[in-house]
């Protein structure tokens, strides 16, 4: 079975070939079956990547990272509590409004109907604006601007 020896350059440089394969590879490199240019380029690249040293992440960057993380956690926690409270309060308000509309016999029916209609209209308009905003937000090119 014929082999593409050019594909084995990396394996040769990594020392992954057995002694017989190494010997054959070297012979083919000498004879030109294996591209000398490609071999030298890959060897140079290995030398380059091997010489790269990772710098330690600076302490002040770690401090900034953790400050940002704590900040975000605090904010999220705050929003969760605030949202829960707001949902309960708004729900209680809506419930009271509906109860008043249905049970309040003192007000004429048309006044109750008008109040209900106005509340419903506000709700529909808000949902419409919110939906539009969410749709536009996806493609808003100015979202990424910070200052």
């Amino acid at each position: 079975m014929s082999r593409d020896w050019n594909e084995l350059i990396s394996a040769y440089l990594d020392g992954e070939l057995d002694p017989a394969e190494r010997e054959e590879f070297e012979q083919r490199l000498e004879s030109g079956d294996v591209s000398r240019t490609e071999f030298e380029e890959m060897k140079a690249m290995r030398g380059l990547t091997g010489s790269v040293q990772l710098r330690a992440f600076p302490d002040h960057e770690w401090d900034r990272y953790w400050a940002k993380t704590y900040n975000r956690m605090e904010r999220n926690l705050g929003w969760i509590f605030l949202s829960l409270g707001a949902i309960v309060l708004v729900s209680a308000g809506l419930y009271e409004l509906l109860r008043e509309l249905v049970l309040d016999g003192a007000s004429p029916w048309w006044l109750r109907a008008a109040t209900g209609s106005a509340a419903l209209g506000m709700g529909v308009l808000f949902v419409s604006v919110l939906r539009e905003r969410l749709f536009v937000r996806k493609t808003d090119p100015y979202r990424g601007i910070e200052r």
Partner: protein
Amino acid sequence: MILVTTNDVAGREITEVLGLVRGSTIRARHIGRDILARMRGIVGGEVSEYTKLMGESREQALDRLVQEARELGADAVVGLRFTTSEVMDSAAEILVYGTAVKLR
């Protein structure tokens, strides 16, 4: 598109004045950001929520001005100016205007 606040473009000659071009926008942030901004107002420091709001508005207004200038076939807008006003609370209105010109 060259945008300058000067009345001419250094090294170039204005060959034709195409007229006034402008771009404007009014943007607001959601109520959550407004709450945070109000809190920052208590403790002080940069109100980054509104910094972002102003930045977004400025870029959008500029893009609209450039679009209008392009439609006129302008090479540059000279005498560029920004103005702002208050139309509604917690919203940023930015108007940018200038003179569209052709250059040689």
